[in-house]
């Protein structure tokens, strides 16, 4: 690590990490999931899982990065033992495979920002625009454009990431706040607030609502993805862990709440009768078909549509940047120079993202497979922390220089509660998939089946296990400047 490879201040680290956490999942997934799970009851469960999944796991990631100063594979090998490098490999592979298609999503956002700016979305039927664009050659071009923008930022290393985050994240917060204020001042918006916040106590007894709340926290805070670990490599030695984790977790969910208010108030104010149809349209249908429709019917909607897609583009790009940096950092640990490593990652992203850009079934399959893989990533972090010693991690890394004292409750959450949550999430997902399609759920060619996840996941895991020895050798081959003493954990 060169002398310049660290965030210049706490705010640089926090803004970059918030940029990683706040992505399209906050803006297009959260409002849809709130609406599909009875609003207020879901929100209560969602706040609970922020505290017992996201924030504790963020602290684990910060601790891994700060302690080892290595990317995912090296950090797992150094802390959990050399026999566990494959677990870090899984975390890195999952985030990288998500990066391949996430740049496609980022490209969609840029395309729609352009269409909003030129007035194309106001003139033409948004459904026709989407149908003509998704899965076309134009989507491949915007995929390359989004990847190129993220590449240009990561090219300048941590300072580049920090400089961009310092501009984009405060701007994103202002944009989402402006859109939310506009939405709640629309006539009839109170129906959206009423729907979003009315608790239905009987719903709280449904396990599916709690599991959806856990899933939303797992996917939209970025906890357990390995991205926070990657940014934590560049935190200053005396940097605090707990307060930063709380700030980022609560900051991310604050943005989700604003996005939920923005989308649901807009829907209820403009098309209250079409709520079920809009919510049921899925992430892309809600964002790229319905939102332009709704903005077109809103006074001054053309301007707010630009702000909406600008916010979405900023959210997508700052998350894409962190995914690019994660894979780059793994290659740097393997001995590559930063720009050469980034070149390989960028080329891989361009090539492996193309099928998702050109064929929507491939995009949906990859989203299905690697989103499911994230539950395993979170579990691996908790298991690796157990292997090193959760209480030891708390005393030696998290409590050191902490601005917020963290007690043994955190040890209990990481050692016991998070593994139970991850196993419950995986078990529920298997059960729900079986119930939905008892005859075809194990079909490996089904697109959105458990079989598709198991086959691709098993191939990846088998390759990582077979390559474990080389992963250890490559990722620990060079000393990690700035690593705390005694980073090596179990054998």
């Amino acid at each position: 690590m060169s002398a310049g490879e660290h965030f210049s201040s706490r705010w640089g680290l926090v803004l970059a990490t918030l940029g990683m956490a706040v992505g399209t999942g906050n803006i297009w997934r959260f409002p849809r999931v709130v609406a599909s799970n009875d609003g207020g009851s879901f929100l209560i469960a969602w706040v609970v899982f922020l505290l017992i999944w996201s924030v504790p796991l963020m602290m684990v990631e910060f601790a891994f990065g700060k302690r080892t100063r290595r990317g995912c594979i090296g950090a797992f090998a150094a802390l959990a033992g050399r026999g566990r490098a494959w677990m870090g490999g899984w975390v890195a592979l999952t985030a990288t495979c998500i990066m391949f298609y996430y740049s496609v999503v980022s490209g969609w956002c840029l395309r729609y920002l352009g269409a909003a700016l030129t007035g194309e979305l106001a003139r033409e039927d948004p459904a026709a625009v989407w149908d003509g664009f998704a899965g076309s050659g134009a989507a491949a071009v915007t995929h390359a454009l989004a990847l190129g923008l993220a590449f240009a930022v990561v090219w300048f290393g941590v300072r580049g990431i920090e400089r961009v985050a310092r501009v984009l994240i405060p701007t994103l917060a202002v944009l989402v706040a402006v859109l939310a204020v506009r939405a709640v001042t629309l006539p009839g918006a109170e129906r959206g607030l009423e729907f979003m916040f009315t608790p239905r106590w009987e719903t709280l007894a449904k396990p599916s609502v709690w599991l959806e709340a856990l899933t939303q926290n797992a996917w939209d805070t970025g906890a357990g993805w390995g991205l926070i670990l990657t940014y934590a490599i560049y935190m200053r030695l005396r940097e605090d862990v707990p307060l930063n984790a709380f700030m980022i977790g609560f900051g991310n969910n604050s943005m989700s709440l604003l996005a939920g208010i923005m989308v649901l108030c807009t829907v209820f104010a403009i098309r209250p009768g079409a709520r079920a149809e809009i919510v049921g349209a899925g992430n892309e249908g809600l964002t790229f078909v319905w939102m332009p429709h709704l903005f077109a019917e809103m006074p001054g909607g053309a301007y707010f549509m630009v702000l909406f897609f600008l916010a979405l583009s900023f959210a997508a790009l700052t998350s894409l940047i962190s995914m690019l940096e994660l894979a780059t950092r793994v290659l740097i640990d393997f001995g590559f120079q930063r720009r050469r490593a980034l070149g390989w990652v960028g080329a891989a992203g361009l090539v492996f993202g193309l099928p998702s850009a050109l064929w929507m079934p491939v995009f949906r399959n990859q989203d299905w497979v690697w989103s499911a893989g994230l539950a395993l990533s979170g579990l691996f972090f908790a298991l690796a922390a157990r292997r090193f010693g959760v209480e030891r991690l708390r005393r030696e890394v998290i409590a050191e220089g902490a601005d917020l004292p963290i007690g043994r409750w955190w040890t209990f959450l990481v050692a016991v509660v998070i593994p139970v949550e991850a196993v419950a999430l995986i078990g529920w997902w298997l059960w729900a998939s079986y119930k939905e399609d008892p005859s075809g759920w194990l079909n490996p060619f089904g697109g959105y089946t458990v079989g598709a996840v198991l086959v691709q996941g098993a191939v990846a895991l088998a390759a990582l296990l077979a390559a474990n020895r080389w992963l250890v050798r490559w990722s620990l081959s060079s000393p990690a400047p700035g690593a705390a003493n005694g980073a090596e954990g179990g054998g």
Partner: protein
Amino acid sequence: MSPAAIVTMAVVCGLVWGGFVAFLGRAVSRERGR
């Protein structure tokens, strides 16, 4: 809006936004103290 919705909104928004502002304020004061 029903009283239950108002209470839930106050609790959820208060916890999430209030929590964020409180943690941010604490971080600002810590940084000023350094």
